[in-house]
């Protein structure tokens, strides 16, 4: 009964320890990088397109559409960061159904690292799109009294990102392990399929939340006239 896959150590040499989290996250990374390099070696814009290129292009278009729907901006700025997060988490969660493999996202270290990436990316994107003064002015709106609460909010939502992904994936694999010791044949398979669905939904949720945090940091809250105009036109349409 392993609650923490950091404790599973495959290989030890002095102070170097290779645990399951490290091994499988590197495996996922190598798998994704290898597939991408193999496919992008022979890109064409002609009719004879390879299957892999079609797959990657459809993935990129899908993520682009989702980003544009969620933010209402052009997706070029966000697509590297968000799609990297999404694809890594999806592959990590789906590796769970292969026997003998552990999802790297079932350890708190991986999810905390991913959440820290989002935590660092929020000010970077915010300052790059809204400017230094506008971004930090958001912290002291409407009064400077709100400053500590805004900072606590930033920290707690990062923590929630990490714990949500970790809890979902870890509980999925743990439930399967418990059920295997009780009813060996039929029921764990159902829970594995359920865990697959949960894993993909959680990857989507993580990516969408990261996108929302990153995009809302760059919003300049000065376009009141524009929003009023939109409201008026909307009311005019509906009445």
């Amino acid at each position, binding site marked *: *009964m392993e609650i923490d896959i950091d404790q599973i150590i495959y290989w030890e040499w002095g102070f170097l320890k290779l645990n399951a989290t490290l091994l499988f996250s590197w495996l996922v990374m190598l798998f994704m990088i290898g597939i991408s390099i193999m496919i992008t070696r022979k890109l064409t814009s002609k009719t004879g397109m390879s299957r892999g290129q079609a797959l990657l292009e459809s993935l990129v278009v899908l993520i682009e559409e989702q980003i544009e729907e969620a933010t209402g901006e052009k997706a070029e700025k966000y697509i590297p960061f968000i799609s990297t997060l999404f694809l890594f988490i999806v592959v990590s969660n789906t590796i769970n159904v292969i026997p003998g493999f552990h999802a790297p996202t079932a350890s708190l270290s991986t999810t905390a690292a991913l959440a820290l990436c989002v935590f660092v990316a929020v000010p970077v994107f915010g300052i790059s799109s809204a400017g230094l003064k506008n971004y930090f002015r958001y912290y002291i709106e409407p009064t400077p009294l709100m400053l500590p609460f805004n900072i606590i909010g930033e920290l707690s939502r990062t923590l929630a990102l990490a*714990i949500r992904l970790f*809890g*979902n994936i*870890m*509980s999925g694999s*743990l439930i399967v392990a418990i059920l295997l010791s009780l009813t060996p044949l039929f029921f764990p398979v159902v829970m594995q399929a359920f865990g697959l669905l*949960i894993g993909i*939904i959680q990857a*989507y949720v993580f990516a969408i939340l990261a996108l929302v945090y990153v995009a809302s940091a760059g919003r300049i809250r000065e376009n009141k006239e524009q929003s009023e105009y939109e409201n008026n036109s909307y009311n005019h349409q509906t009445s």
Partner: protein
Amino acid sequence: MESISIIGMVSIITAGLTIAIGSIAPALGEGRALAQALLAIAQQPDESPTITRTLFVGLAMIESTAIYCFVVALIIMFANPFWDFVAGG
């Protein structure tokens, strides 16, 4: 009664209560969310992809509150930090 048995008893009872009480509120919330989403789909079937997607995201976020309770219960059961004080000392 020894302290190790007290810790074991309290841990088991607390873990059960945690997951029991902690899953009531998310269940109620998810039920309400699902009912509203079904109502919205019944009124506007054209918007069902958007509604379904948003519903899944919302359900996953509500579900995570229950997951937090589950994680706490698991930590109490399998990775209780207070065992070491008694078992080691």
